């Protein structure tokens, strides 16, 4: 009986280790709450926003983003100098290990350029992120209206 208990405990430990290992690897970089601002007709650009966390043991960088709706997606940072809004393109976005970044309106965002037709609320848009270290990641972003309470 005691031997059986021991085997059970060993099996449980292996299971725990395996689960931890798997979740660690599947979550090396997590992208969530991704959304794209719905566009009025005539608008050729829009912003995309999301949260990203680097769970891995190494620093990383987003080096490019691709999507079927645009062949030009850029990382941008917004600066407000008094009341004047300026945007600067970022060549890449550094993501230190353990770091959580939130890209939101008025701050850092993805600028999706060259839209050929409006993006309507509810549409799901594929976005593929390429990193310096981690494997590329395909995520679905949802289109929604920029809303205020």
């Amino acid at each position: 009986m005691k031997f059986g208990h021991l085997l059970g405990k060993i099996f449980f430990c292996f299971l725990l280790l395996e689960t931890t290992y798997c979740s660690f690897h599947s979550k090396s970089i997590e992208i969530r709450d991704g959304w794209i601002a719905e566009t009025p007709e005539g608008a050729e650009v829009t912003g995309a926003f999301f949260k990203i966390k680097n769970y891995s043991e190494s620093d990383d960088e987003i080096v490019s983003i691709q999507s079927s709706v645009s062949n030009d997606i850029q990382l941008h940072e917004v600066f407000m100098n008094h009341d004047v809004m300026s945007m600067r393109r970022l060549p890449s976005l550094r993501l230190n290990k353990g770091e959580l970044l939130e890209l939101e309106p008025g701050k850092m965002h993805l600028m999706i350029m060259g839209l050929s037709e409006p993006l309507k609320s509810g549409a799901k848009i594929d976005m593929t992120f390429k990193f310096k270290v981690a494997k590329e990641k395909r995520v679905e972003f949802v289109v929604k209206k920029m809303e205020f309470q």
Partner: protein
Amino acid sequence: MLKNIFALIFLYGFIVSNCKGNQPVLDKFPEIGGNFTLEDTAGNKFSLSDLKGKSVLLFFGYTNCPDACSFNLSRLSAVYKKLGSDSEKVKTLFVTVDPARDTKEKMGKYLSYFKFNPIGLIGTGKEIDKVADLYKIVHIKRETGKGTDYQVDHSTITFLIDANGVVRYLIKQDDPVNQVTAVIRNLLSEKL
């Protein structure tokens, strides 16, 4: 460039003096504003004075702006909802700072998305510069490094103008919907 710096310092000074404590207070800004005439998206001449008797929200932006302009127009949509029946007493003017790319058709389509019917105004580069000067608006074209593409850095202030065409409040980009609604209501009640 120097003109832009002066405009920036000038407007910012007014913004700081715009709030007493945390309460938005209506004021007068004799150095800012004035009547102007541009063209609307239907191709008609349109002057600020055409809206005499109404409260006006005046904003400068462009349709290729991916962040500040859609952010502000979406915020104004929420403000109009909150104003309810009073929203009919307030008109919004959207003056392009990108006259080279913002055609009448493009502006018309873009603005028709917003249910509160903002009026889009266009003009030649010189005409736009003249209006921007009146309102101390900074607008600077910046190349993106991709062909001939560019963005326009621009002031994000929305001017609240009274029924006589006088600027009474400078709405900042980060002013919340409730504050913007409250200051417009203040202005509307002042006329009674």
